């Protein structure tokens, strides 16, 4: 059997050198450890960086330990590169779709994939400067690069150097899970960890997994010109999201020319004459397709190996993540955890927010709870699908009477002027009240629109108040006010209407 093909590595260009200078400079020398740190943070992804910055700002003596690169998945091979690539992909889609906007489509639209990827590296490098080692050091954080192991309840080593701590936060994140499919490892596959290293567009791409990552990249690569097939073993994409949202995404994929295979499992991968042959089954329908590159996006594994957690008395869940309570405390009361290594919701915003809770609880004995967080999330497909709070099925299961105010975007002038009517705002309220329980938005910029609902939920503002908020016209955000107006109109019961009529005709 031939060894698996080597995954692509990052081109060593000026942007890559600049990025490494920010996030792991070759010349970096670890500082001499302080006698004791008030807080040691393990892992410098979004959670670790947020924790370090907050703790340093609060005046704590802080050490931050990173094995590889500052910035973690988000900056290096997650949100930042994917959103950068998605923007280029959308531009190509708009060019091809120019007639929809009454514009002339260019006769020929050649895709410069290498240029798109160079832009990804440039922007990633630029944003890497925001959390550079030097900035952290200037803020008073002792940054250590190297392999770390716990050696006791309040001690650890970094490259054999001993550090003592009062409190620690583990924020080592998670890595892509490669599904156990016969022949997949031998054939080789990409994950988010290396897909952004590509410099040539694959002609035929198979995406395994219909979660946020798989959906975003399937659409992006399709729009950049690859022939994309996406395989999902569930009836719809984004299984947590509500059915209408997921259905809209399926429809959008069909318009983009993506071959959608729902309810389908990949059973085996074979390499024949240099081609990757993918065997699939959907109930009783067996089929095989040929592709050039396989990308997997089917879940993530927490990074807990090599940390010697047993020595610190930190325990793991069945799923392999770090066990924490609602205050983010591990089984060792000195040690907390934050971000993907311990959370089900693996989003940058959740990681950052959980890090802030962990710092306050660790340094000040705070009692802040993870469950009090209201965290929105968004899948950055076109259209975007954003959600915050409860889903209707969750409310139903909890016995909370729920009613949804639905505004299709074809009701919103700005969506119509922009030819972006395919979407909606759904706001779920507690029945017979204006209390917002949650919301789902499907729109081109749903991720931005959901923030207004999140603000309302955090501030305890209901639809009654939102209906009084004048929204700029014409904006797609008006859909939120329209939902609030619809709520207001439901207060006009026939009895109140009759009373009003009587009063007006006095």
């Amino acid at each position: 059997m031939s060894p698996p093909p080597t995954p692509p590595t990052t081109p060593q260009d000026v942007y890559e050198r600049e990025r490494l200078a920010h996030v792991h400079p070759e010349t970096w020398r670890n500082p001499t450890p302080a006698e004791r740190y008030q807080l040691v943070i393990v892992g410098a992804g979004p959670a670790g960086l947020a924790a370090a910055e907050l703790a340093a700002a609060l005046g704590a003596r802080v050490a931050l330990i990173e094995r590889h690169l500052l910035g973690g998945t988000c900056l290096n091979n997650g949100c930042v590169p994917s959103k950068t690539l998605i923007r280029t992909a959308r531009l190509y889609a708009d060019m091809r779709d120019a007639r929809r906007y009454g514009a002339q489509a260019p006769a020929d639209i050649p895709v410069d994939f290498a240029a798109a990827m160079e832009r990804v590296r440039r922007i990633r490098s630029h944003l890497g400067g925001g959390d550079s080692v030097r900035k952290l050091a200037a803020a008073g954080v002792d940054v250590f690069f190297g392999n770390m192991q716990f050696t006791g309840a309040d001690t650890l080593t970094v490259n054999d150097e001993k550090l003592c701590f009062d409190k620690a936060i583990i924020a080592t994140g998670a890595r892509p899970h490669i599904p156990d499919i016969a022949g997949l490892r031998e054939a080789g596959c990409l994950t988010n960890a290396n897909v952004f290293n590509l410099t040539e567009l694959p002609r035929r791409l198979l995406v395994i997994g219909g979660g946020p990552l798989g959906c975003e990249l399937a659409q992006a690569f399709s729009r950049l010109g690859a022939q994309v097939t996406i395989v999902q073993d569930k009836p719809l994409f984004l299984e947590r999201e509500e059915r209408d949202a997921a259905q809209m995404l399926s429809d959008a994929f069909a318009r983009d020319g993506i071959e959608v295979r729902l309810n389908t499992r990949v059973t085996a991968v074979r390499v024949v004459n240099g081609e990757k042959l993918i065997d699939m089954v959907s109930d009783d329908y067996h089929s095989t397709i040929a592709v050039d590159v396989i990308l997997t996006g089917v879940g993530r594994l927490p990074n807990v190996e090599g940390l010697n957690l047993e020595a610190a008395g930190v325990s793991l869940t069945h799923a392999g993540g770090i066990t924490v309570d609602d205050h983010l405390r591990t089984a060792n009361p000195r040690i907390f955890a934050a971000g993907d290594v311990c959370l089900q919701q693996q989003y940058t915003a959740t990681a950052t927010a959980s890090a802030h809770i962990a710092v306050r609880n660790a340094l000040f004995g705070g009692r802040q709870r993870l469950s009090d967080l209201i965290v929105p999330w968004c899948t950055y497909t076109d259209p975007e699908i954003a959600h915050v709070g409860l889903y209707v099925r969750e409310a139903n299961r909890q016995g909370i009477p729920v009613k949804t105010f639905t505004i299709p975007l074809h009701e919103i002038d700005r969506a119509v002027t922009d030819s972006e009517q395919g979407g909606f705002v759904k706001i779920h309220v507690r029945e017979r009240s204006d209390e917002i329980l949650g919301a789902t938005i499907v729109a081109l910029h749903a991720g931005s629109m959901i923030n207004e609902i999140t603000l309302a939920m955090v501030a305890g503002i209901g639809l009654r108040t939102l209906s009084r908020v004048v929204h700029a016209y014409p904006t797609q955000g008006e859909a939120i006010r329209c939902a609030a107006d619809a709520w207001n109109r439901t207060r006009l019961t026939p009895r109140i209407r009759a009373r009003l009529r009587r009063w007006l005709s006095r």
Partner: protein
Amino acid sequence: MLADEALLDRLQRAAFGYFEHNINPRNGLVADTSRDNSPVSIAVVGFALSAYPVAVERGWMARDEALRRSLAALRFFRDSDQSGSPTATGYRGFYYHFLDIHSGARVWQSELSMIDTALLIAGALTAAMYFSADSADETELRALADFLYRRIDWRWSQDDGETIRQGWKPECGFLHYGWEGYSEAIVLYVLAMGSPSHPISGDCYRAWTATYQWENLYDHDYLYAGPLFVHHFSHAWLDLRGIRDRFMREKRADYFENSRRAVLIQREYAWRNPHEFDGYDENGWGLSACDGPSDEQLGLANEPRRLFGYAARGVPYGPDDGTLSPSAVLSSLPFAPDLALAAVRNLLLRYPEMLNDDRLASSVNPSLRGADGKAWVSAGHYGLDQGIVLMMIENHRSGLPWKLMRGCSYLRDGLRVAGFRGGWLLASAPGGAH
């Protein structure tokens, strides 16, 4: 212009003609569509069984002929191959969705269908309620319907899950399609809960209704489902006026009122016509499961729309390719008689080509015009369309199907287990004669 009653009579009589002309009299099986080589749809057989009593009462078919056809179908299912093999007719009391009209064997590698079996058995029970004489044939018919109903292993269809699965195939076991949200399945759940032999529990119904979404859309509160037929099918047999399950009690509505609101929302959507299709307005609506123009149009160059074949079109999120289902409009008659009649008359006036032998085509797409300027019309007829039209016109005119099924103790028991209370259920004692 025909008076309303005369128009309805003509359309209903023509709908019944479908069942007269597309049946294999030897086994009572009825074709899915009037097109050549159409297989049998078991749901259409259920509609046929429900249609015969209407036809007898309206003088369109002699009682003994209706009885003969009903018996032929029920005897066929009794004697059918229940081994669950790939060429059998059924398994565990359920039946494959599509069957060969001559042999009754499974075709198209179709699935063992829970909802279609429910529609078939609802028809069998309708026949059993109607043919109530003491004659040998009618006694046999009632025994057959009872046997077929009791044979269905509803519990098995849960596959140890919370709700009923949508289908099963011998090649791969249960299918994995999601079946969340309000759908036409109330009649399926009620039948499954009313079973004296293999009943599912009320928890199963509650687990299904936990996926419901109560929405305010275009200023109407309703239990959301996009395609119009979802708001009709269970109502063909179940009189859901004034009786409420827990969900509807909480919402201070009932399923009948809900279907009325669904009509208002369909009408409102078509009036707003977000995709700017021809023929959509306050009297041009009806987005539902129906045939569509895709097969005929795929080869056209520069076709800007995305067209669908047979698909469940819905409001407000589509799919919407400009195709309307006139039978879905007509089937709205019990819920919103004036609106449905106005729309049907309007569609007939604008697109007379959608009426063939006085029967409604499955669908019409006014945005797609042929060289003769006529709207695209689906070829032939679909049994499901004719069945639901016939039943809903009858429920509007005389309420006969509802009256028959209110007397069916299995359905009453099923409704009670589902938590339905009030209305006509109050007046009928639990259990009692079937």
